[in-house]
């Protein structure tokens, strides 16, 4: 895998994009963040529905996810807009983000004197951050700087046969070149624990793999009761999946055959290179936040039924498992995996996807980016709010 040009960050990471973000620290500040984004072209608002009314584990998860988004190397600079009375204080998030050396500004709406003044103040700060960020230029970066997120959603019977093995081929190349790949959605790993444990780099990692997948199985049963067996759903059965192992093997095929080097919690930044498993839900928008917060610069997202979503600060490469979908939703799909594999070996098809990955890293817009598929950010929670 060749080197690529990316934006150097003060913490040594390398970005594929150079975004300036406006992050409301609580959902009550979404309106002001939106007003700032409407006034200042080029800043990216990160709308979400959290920041208060939570405690314990959820507060930890949400703080880590939002701090992780700010630390994502695709983010050049950030403006945090707090309300003032929320739990998730802007200055705490700002302190964490500043530790990475990025330009970070923050203020609170209650202190600024209401929405209009806050928006005006925020717009001025955002303009100045944009100017600072525009001075950053791409430099030569190594595949070792690359973190690739692996994701599937709206899968069909060919997802695990065409698109996922194709992504797995490229994921293995990223790992071979010294980069990191992150596979999440622990619910989609149920039934394959023995296989992933076998692939663990040492017994401690194997134990964590087992623990994570058992917990995912327990959670699924707690939430769904007798319906938990429908993790292999009627649609899966109709599509030809005969067992939970078969379905999950199709899912983990996105991670190729590399050894599992580390297991991390939701939204946690991996310490090791190589293939990393992240605990987290299968729900697409929440699991994508987990990946973005871990610091992936790009995601590969396979789909069989056709899911158009992207992510605000991370380019998402959409890979259709079948040609009819690619033709129907061509505006949303970057790759037709079924056609790519026609008459080509996995190696040949992998060459083309690897090249696309490098082009996207260097600035080529994905379909999701072109379509502005960057809606609200969803954060994984374990309890309801109070």
């Amino acid at each position, binding site marked *: 895998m060749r080197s690529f040009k990316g934006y150097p960050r003060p913490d040594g990471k390398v970005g594929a994009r150079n975004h300036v973000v406006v992050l409301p620290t609580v959902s009550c500040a979404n309106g002001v963040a939106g007003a700032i984004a409407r006034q200042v072209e080029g800043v990216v608002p990160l709308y979400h529905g959290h920041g208060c009314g939570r405690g314990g584990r959820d507060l930890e998860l949400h703080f880590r996810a939002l701090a992780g988004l700010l630390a994502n190397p695709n983010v050049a600079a950030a403006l945090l807009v707090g309300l003032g009375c929320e739990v998730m204080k802007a200055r705490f998030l700002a302190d964490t983000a500043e530790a990475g050396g990025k330009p970070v500004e923050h203020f609170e709406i209650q202190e600024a004197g209401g929405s209009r003044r806050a928006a005006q103040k925020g717009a001025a700060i955002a303009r100045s951050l944009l100017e600072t960020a525009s001075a950053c230029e791409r430099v030569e970066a190594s595949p070792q700087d690359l973190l690739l997120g692996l994701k599937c959603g709206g899968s*069909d*019977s*060919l997802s*695990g*046969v*065409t698109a996922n*093995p194709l992504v797995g081929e490229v994921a293995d190349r990223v790992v071979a070149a010294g980069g990191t790949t992150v596979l999440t959605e622990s619910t989609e790993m149920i039934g*394959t624990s*023995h*296989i992933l444990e076998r692939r663990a780099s040492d017994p401690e990692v194997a134990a964590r793999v087992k623990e994570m997948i058992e917990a995912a199985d327990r959670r699924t049963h707690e939430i769904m009761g007798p319906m938990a067996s429908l993790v292999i759903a009627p649609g899966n*059965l109709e*599509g*030809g999946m*005969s*067992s*939970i*192992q*078969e379905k999950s*093997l*199709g899912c983990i*095929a996105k991670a190729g055959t590399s050894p599992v080097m580390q297991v991390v919690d939701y939204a946690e930044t991996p310490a090791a290179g190589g293939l990393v498993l992240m605990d987290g839900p299968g729900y697409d928008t929440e699991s994508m936040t987990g990946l973005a917060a871990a610091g992936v610069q790009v995601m590969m997202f396979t789909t069989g039924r056709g899911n158009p979503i992207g992510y605000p600060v991370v380019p998402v490469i959409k890979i259709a498992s079948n040609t009819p979908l690619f033709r129907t939703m061509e505006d949303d799909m970057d790759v037709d995996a*079924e056609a790519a*594999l*026609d*008459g080509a070996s996995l190696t040949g098809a992998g060459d083309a996807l690897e090249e696309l990955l490098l082009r996207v890293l260097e600035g080529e817009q994905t379909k999701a980016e072109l379509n502005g598929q960057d809606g609200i950010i969803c954060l994984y929670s374990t309890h309801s709010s109070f």
Partner: protein
Amino acid sequence: MEQDVIIINEADNVAVARRDIPAGEEVALPTGGSLTAAADIPRGHKVALVAIADGGRVIKYGECIGVAGADIGPGDWVHTHNIEAADKP
């Protein structure tokens, strides 16, 4: 050239149909040779590449996805009617 079936891993004893294959039709295998469908194989479903005896392991992705609940012949449709969950995969 379009393939009729995909074999994901060389250790697999089943292949995946790329299109609906009617019973009796001969399909070319990507590894060379051919196979006659013993039943209708819907797109995305599995067809046995070789005989799998009752109780034998069904291998896809190079891994066991279940055990045969009946004798499966080459060209047979392989699904929940003739696969059982493997206790010790």
